[in-house]
């Protein structure tokens, strides 16, 4: 198995580094194609979210240095990146991928967005022609495992989402959210969920601001239809505002949820000082879930202004995870079983390929020898020639029986050394592939 996964995430790298490695949606295909040009990388998928940047590759020889690729692509000193990069190979890479897709490796364990993000990355890689017979079945399997974990454990049910963490923090600042104004900048799914939760908790006015005015208007309209009434039947106001008027409206907002792809801070300390003065120092709460960050970290130094970025939310979320170890253990057990199953399948597929190759080679040898002996057998009658043909076939069958049984046994027992030795003996020279049945019952994605 030559699946190799390398990356950084919220556990290994600070946000300052992650935002330098962040890949904008429009850049994903280019990064994927560039990754394919690295020697030995035959298939590749790039996953970039607020919490992680990962490269999933298939390398027959496992020779490509993915950390070096990341440093070179993003023009960062390799020494700076290296301590934060993790590299997983073979089964470890599969396990990590399954855990990521099942949201066990997420900042907020059990949050549902990550599966969609992995699927999006898969779609981009497929359209770039970067995913074929090795990574495709692996990713299909990862999606199925994620669904299985969600269905068989309550990890998603009791999910401590970014949205709920944001609401908890807003309550610690404002208490009752009734009458509060929320400003949502950007159009990220997570920001939308946070805004929705804040409205459910009583926020009565929500402003949408986007560089593309039509998107802000569409979002405002959707909220108007879906959340017209807040808690207690109070009518909620949903309104799109122009990007040019962002800072004017930000001063009106008690809570600013920001998740744009701006690439640099759109809220600076100077802006925040203006808001504080205009608000007569009433608190203002920034929930910055963008990577790179939308809010300059120094904004948090200003009195009455509170800034929580995606990493800060982790600490709060972690505190809310007590009592969910049981679900996490169940989910980990599912992942472990699925990794084992996938590995067996890969070995089985490998053995099948070897058996086909071995059989073909022996048959080729038999036919070659028959052709060579043909002039000497010309005097034989048709019945005699047929008997010779039958005899050589039977001989080949008997000869290949032993190695085939050994291959099957090695695959079943995961004896990779024996598999390699038998393959080498018959040097078929092809790689395994194919479509893996998604589970015992043949469930499909």
């Amino acid at each position, binding site marked *: 198995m030559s699946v190799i996964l390398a990356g950084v995430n919220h556990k290994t790298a600070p946000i300052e580094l992650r935002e330098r490695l962040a890949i904008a949606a429009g850049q994903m295909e280019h990064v994927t194609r560039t990754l394919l040009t690295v020697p030995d990388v035959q298939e590749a998928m790039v996953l970039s979210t607020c919490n992680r940047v990962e490269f999933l590759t298939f390398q027959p020889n496992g020779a490509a240095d993915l950390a070096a690729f990341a440093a070179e692509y993003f023009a960062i000193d390799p020494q700076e990146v290296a301590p934060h990069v993790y590299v997983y190979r073979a089964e470890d890479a599969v396990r990590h991928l399954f855990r990521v897709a099942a949201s066990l490796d997420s900042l907020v364990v059990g949050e549902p967005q990550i599966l969609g993000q992995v699927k999006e990355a898969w779609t981009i890689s497929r359209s770039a022609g970067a995913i074929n017979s090795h990574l495709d079945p692996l990713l299909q399997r990862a999606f199925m495992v994620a669904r299985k974990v969600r269905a068989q454990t309550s990890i998603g049910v009791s999910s401590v989402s970014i949205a709920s963490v944001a609401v908890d*923090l807003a*309550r*610690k*600042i*404002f*208490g009752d959210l009734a009458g509060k104004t929320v400003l949502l900048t950007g159009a990220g799914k997570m920001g939308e969920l946070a805004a929705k939760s804040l409205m459910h908790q009583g926020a009565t006015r929500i402003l949408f601001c986007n560089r593309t005015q039509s998107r802000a208007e569409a979002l405002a309209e959707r909220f108007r239809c879906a959340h017209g009434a807040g808690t207690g039947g109070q009518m909620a106001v949903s309104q799109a505002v122009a990007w040019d008027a962002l800072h004017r409206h930000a001063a009106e907002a008690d809570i600013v949820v920001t998740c744009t792809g701006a690439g640099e801070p759109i809220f600076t300390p100077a802006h925040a000082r203006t808001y504080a003065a205009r*608000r*007569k*120092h*009433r*608190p203002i709460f920034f929930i910055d879930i963008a990577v790179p960050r939308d809010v300059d970290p120094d904004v*948090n130094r200003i*009195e*009455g202004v*509170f800034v*929580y970025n995606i990493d*800060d939310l982790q*600490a*709060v979320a972690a*505190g809310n995870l007590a009592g969910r170890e049981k679900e996490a253990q169940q989910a980990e057990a599912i992942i472990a079983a699925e990794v084992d199953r996938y590995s067996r399948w890969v070995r089985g597929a490998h053995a099948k390929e070897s058996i086909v190759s071995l059989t073909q080679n022996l048959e080729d040898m038999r036919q070659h020898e028959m052709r060579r002996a043909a002039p000497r057998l010309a005097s034989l009658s048709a019945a005699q020639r047929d008997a010779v043909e039958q005899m050589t076939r039977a001989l080949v069958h008997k000869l290949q029986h032993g190695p085939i049984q050994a291959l099957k046994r090695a695959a079943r027992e995961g004896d990779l050394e024996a598999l390699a030795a038998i393959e080498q003996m018959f040097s078929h020279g092809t790689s395994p592939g194919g479509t893996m049945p998604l589970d015992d019952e043949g469930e499909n994605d």
Partner: protein
Amino acid sequence: MYLFWLRAALVFSGIASLAVLPGAFQGSDRWRRFLVPLCIAGVGCNFIGLTQMLSRAGHWVPTSIEETTASFALLLALTFLGLYLRYRAISLGLFALPLVFLLLLPAAVGVDPARHAYEPLRNGWILIHIAFVLTAYAALVLSIVSSLLYLIQERRLKTKQIGGVFSHLPPLETIDQISFRMLVIGFPCMTIGLLAGALIAQQTVGAGYFLDPKVLLSIAMWLLYVWMLYVRGHSGLRGRRAAYLTSLVFLAALTVWVANQFSSVHRFAAP
């Protein structure tokens, strides 16, 4: 008999001071449920004990240290109780209830309530003066306590240290609201108290009372109070600077109280 009631009040406030700890630090509802009955019992005992003590002294105006602190404890406990019932801000009790306990100590250890027998003390204006000034002090104390809690909560939110022993502090805006409301409630009390005091001084000492150091300090303190309210109301001042301002006014109020030692007007002992 009054000693029995004051000592019962002391015991109740002591237990309430302990009961507030799990409620404030762990959010324990079990202890929270005991808090209100304990406070009510303490306030009731304090009221009965104080009434009997004053009755025995032959005046209704608290003048001695013991009477004043017991009255102050009563007002402080009542204000805390009111705030708790309104805002469920149990954390205020972390500071307010031990203070009530300490204020009750001098009276509960035993005093001679009859030592101040001075005719003007039966005057209703003095009762108004002392009652309102003590209420203003109680409001100021709770405002300072709230400011302190605000600083703790603000620091926790700024440094993102959300867990820990202070995880059950009230929301920042609620604390700020309590702090400002206490100042707003304290101000008319202080004003009425000082006006009543001025009226009594005018009657007993004459126009010269105005030059008394305590009176001058009281006016300065009142002006400081007005300025603080203006600054907080006008600029929306919060947090550290607001806490400093409130502390400044409270310090001024304490100075005014200490100035009793230098005042010829503010002496209730029989001449």
